[in-house]
């Protein structure tokens, strides 16, 4: 199929438009929610260099979410701020695993967050992101392909960072190894929707917006298994449902409430 060069061209075909918008929501919401969970670690990472690195990655990732919301705005889906702050949980398309709380407690009081969860999740997320970006780099929607190519120039730094963390913890003390392994086993039970493309998966593939689910999953598993020592043996599952279908947990509500607190207090504020 011929490349689609602009938002206006994409609007000519309703079926194409719907598949494209659905895909952009997934990409935007994934980067958005993972950045929020990342921002909750500010000042709490194990040491100062890890804190600087994680904050920098998180800020850049939020910038990537902005790019996808911008593409949605250009398609006529609404303003960026509205898309980021005002959509109710059932309209969100991020994978459920990415909205999971960092641990017990809250940021402002007693944050008992779990670094093993974070290292495992960030590694799985960045690996997904790489696989998807490589597939998006030849997307039939050119503005998306250009965005993906640009993000691919920055994202290898993010992936390398979390690969280093997981590789080092796997070679560390028995306690570290156990913690990482438990979080991997947990991820396998929850993260299947990370590799899914939702109800419009077929159209996305047919219109060459992105590669198909099976291919993405195969690539992801190959990359993940090259780094983790003992991949869980059970098949991937999604015990909290699929975020791609709008299914979410209370953790997402907590995240969205916190995220939109300032925005909701004065919607006309400029900063």
């Amino acid at each position: 199929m011929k490349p689609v060069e602009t938002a206006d061209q994409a609007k000519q075909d309703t079926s194409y438009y719907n598949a494209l918008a659905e895909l952009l929501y997934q990409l935007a919401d994934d980067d958005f929610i993972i950045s929020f969970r990342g921002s909750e670690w500010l000042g709490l990472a194990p040491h100062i260099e890890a804190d600087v690195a994680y904050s920098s990655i998180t800020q850049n990732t939020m910038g990537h979410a902005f790019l996808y919301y911008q593409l949605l705005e250009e398609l006529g889906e609404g303003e960026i701020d509205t898309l980021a702050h005002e959509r109710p949980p059932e309209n969100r398309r991020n994978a459920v695993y990415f909205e999971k709380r960092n641990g017990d407690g809250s940021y402002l009081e007693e944050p008992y967050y779990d670094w093993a969860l974070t290292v495992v999740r960030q590694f799985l997320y960045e690996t997904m992101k790489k696989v998807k970006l490589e597939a998006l780099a030849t997307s039939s929607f050119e503005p998306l392909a250009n965005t993906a190519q640009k993000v691919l120039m920055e994202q290898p730094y993010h992936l390398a960072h979390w690969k280093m963390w997981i590789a080092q913890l796997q070679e560390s003390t028995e306690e570290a190894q156990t913690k990482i392994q438990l979080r991997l086993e947990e991820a396998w039970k929850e993260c299947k929707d990370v590799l899914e493309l939702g109800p419009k998966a077929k159209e996305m593939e047919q219109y060459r917006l992105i590669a198909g689910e099976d291919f993405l999953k195969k690539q992801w598993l190959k990359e993940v298994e090259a780094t983790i020592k003992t991949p869980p043996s059970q098949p991937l599952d999604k015990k909290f449902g699929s975020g791609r279908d709008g299914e979410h947990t209370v953790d997402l509500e907590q995240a969205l409430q916190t995220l939109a607190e300032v925005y909701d207090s004065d919607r006309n504020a400029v900063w």
Partner: protein
Amino acid sequence: MNDEQKHEEIHAILKTVDDPELPSVSVVDLGMVHEVTIDQSKVSITMVPTFAGCPALDFIEKNVKSAVGNIDWVEDCLVAFSFQKKWSTDAITDEGKEQLKKHGVSPPPENYRPGEEWSVNCPYCGSAFTSMENVFGPTACRSILYCGSCKNPFEAMKPVVNYSIVY
């Protein structure tokens, strides 16, 4: 005033617009200005961001608009960031590299190969006896290093990974 003179004037004004995170280094010298088109009193500027996730882009756009808008013959100035053209570290001018060093920031390494470790010389004393402290720094496009010769911490601009996937 003919178009050539207009272009020269725009260029001179853009040389005064600094990156908000790197005072004294202009957006021109950072290689962020891709194309300027002039149609009578209308100016369109296409810019290339260093890092797409950079939160300073809004400020840069605002500063470019207001600087160009101050030229008396300009009635309208459009600024757009494009990802079609990729920013590369080669786009930084020699003057830009010198200005970066004065600011305590080394220009990115040349001939960087993705996946390999990289090093740069100290922006203060020029020594190659430097070590990487943190690939991540105060902004997405910078890293933190240390000079073993003059014992100064310094920063360097990260090389972007040249990742080209073609149809």
